[in-house]
């Protein structure tokens, strides 16, 4: 393998139902930084069916080139046709790095691609940088449930591949009217690569705000004591214009849905305000929220680890304080109006 033959930073664009998933824009944002350090460009690889309309936003968020693979067989995600198209793209265009969102799609297709083209894949990265000396990508990820961080390199294989946690990288401001070249690519015999049949697609989450997009999160844990008490959090979130999230303990207890979970096995969030109510702050939880701009923690146990990351820690019972806080905020808002 001649490493010099591999050029450019590629981003796998995840689209579902004809909409680009936010993490793809975040990856383009990060890829621009890496490409600048490497003196190269960012290519967005877009797979799907009738996805012409998605090229515009991809260019406006920073893609320098788009490779579009448009086929009826790619309308709904399936492992093998997607892995095949990405592997063929890599073989043809030889990128030095490929970034994939660490989503339920990316964490499935990523390993298959890397195994097929025989390269390394670093999972769930939270940091990416270029080593100025070697030009190697340094991919940093949490391990041991977030207890330690490891920086991984892939020195002798190309492309260097990483899946990246959603919500960690920042997308660039949208530049209206920015355009870039779009190249169509049709891998041969795609129809030979269908080995699973989709019997049914069922949407589960109601049209509620994704906690990763929320600017304000009111988050509940074991200290909320019951599913009913989550209404207190919803009322507080409503006053603040925020969204309710939770810790793993609340999901395990059946008080909240899995898609509301913040942390190592849930989602990484960094809202402007995170209010942790009755959350002790296991390291796995902190790993998912400690980059929030302002953290308020309410917990009865004054030794709870959540206080180590909180800007404002309140030792007390969230069940008593939250309703009073909701009322106090309502008064504040009325006073302002």
């Amino acid at each position, binding site marked *: 393998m001649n490493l010099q033959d591999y050029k450019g930073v590629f981003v796998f664009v995840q689209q579902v139902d004809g909409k680009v998933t936010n993490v793809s824009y975040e990856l383009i944002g990060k890829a621009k930084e890496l490409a600048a350090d490497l003196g190269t460009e960012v290519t967005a690889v877009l797979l799907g069916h009738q996805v012409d309309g998605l090229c515009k936003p991809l260019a406006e968020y920073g893609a320098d080139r788009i490779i579009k693979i448009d086929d009826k067989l790619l309308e709904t995600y399936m492992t093998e046709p997607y892995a095949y198209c990405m592997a063929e793209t890599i073989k043809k265009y030889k990128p030095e790095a490929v970034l994939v969102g660490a989503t339920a799609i990316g964490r499935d297709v990523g390993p298959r691609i890397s*195994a097929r083209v025989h390269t390394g894949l670093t*999972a769930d990265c939270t940091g990416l940088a270029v080593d100025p000396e070697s030009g190697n990508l340094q991919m940093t990820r949490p391990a041991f*449930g977030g207890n330690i961080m490891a920086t*991984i390199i892939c020195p002798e294989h190309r492309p260097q591949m990483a899946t990246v946690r959603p919500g960690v990288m920042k997308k660039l401001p949208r530049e209206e009217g920015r355009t870039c070249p779009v190249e169509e690519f049709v891998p041969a015999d795609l129809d030979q690569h269908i080995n699973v049949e989709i019997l049914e697609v069922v949407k589960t989450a109601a049209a509620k705000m994704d906690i990763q997009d929320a600017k304000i999160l009111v988050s509940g844990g074991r200290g909320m004591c019951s599913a009913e008490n989550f209404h207190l959090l919803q009322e507080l979130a409503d006053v603040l214009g925020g969204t309710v999230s939770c810790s793993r303990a609340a999901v395990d207890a059946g008080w909240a849905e899995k898609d509301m979970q913040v942390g190592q096995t849930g989602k990484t969030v960094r809202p402007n305000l995170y209010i942790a109510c009755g959350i002790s702050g296991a390291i796995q939880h902190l790993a998912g929220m400690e980059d929030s701009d302002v953290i308020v923690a309410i917990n009865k146990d004054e030794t709870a680890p959540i206080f180590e990351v*909180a800007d404002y820690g309140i030792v007390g019972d969230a069940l008593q304080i939250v309703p009073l806080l909701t009322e106090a905020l309502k008064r504040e808002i009325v006073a302002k109006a």
Partner: protein
Amino acid sequence: MNIVVCIKQVPDTNEVKIDPVTGTLIRDGIPSIMNPDDKAGLEAALRIKEQNGAHIAVVSMGPPQADAVLREALAMGADEGYLITDRAFGGADTWATSSTIASAIEKLPYDLIITGRQAIDGDTAQVGPQIAEHLGLANISYAEDIKVEGDYVIVKRQFEDRYHVLKAKMPCLITALSELNEPRYMTPGGIFDAYREGDVKTFTRPDLAVSDDNIGLKGSPTRVFKSFTKALKAAGTKVQLDPQESADYIVEKLKEKFII
């Protein structure tokens, strides 16, 4: 039918603590467990065995102590265990691990391979799909429900905001979520039987046809460049007030920060 279940012995990461003085991981006395997603995969296999009849082989790659999780699997109801262990396999990343395990599975009869989605010590979710790639099989990841119908599996495949019901012809590979089921306990008779000699066989380097280029540290495309403990940000202020004062305090601070 023949089912191969891949399991990993992992430290219980919920118990892992950081030494506040040295900032390093305290591993002493941390219990080892069967990885939770893998255990759910094994339970799914046991349920298929109960309903459809099946022979279950469990496979684990690791140091000699990983024998313990294979015995646990036998005590839960698996039929035989294989430990893949050799210094030559050490230091492997997911690429080398998956090619090693794939070459061991090639020696066994299989219609269905079940792995956990991910292990709690590495959290990569890569080894399952990569085993499927090395064996040239279809894979279905993130399984919430598994049914066997004739030569096909029907799997409920989880995504963030939806699920797909997928049908694949066996042989194929499925990665299981811990939400799949509630794994059973070992039975006393099962524990007794699990420790009879001979039920756990060992694969060492000479037993596997995999090339030297695809195993261990040497066969791993990735390298750990450095590892470190994450610096937590400086602690803020902590107050203990009565509930009403607490609420007013938060409002005041949010005003200071221009959040409200």
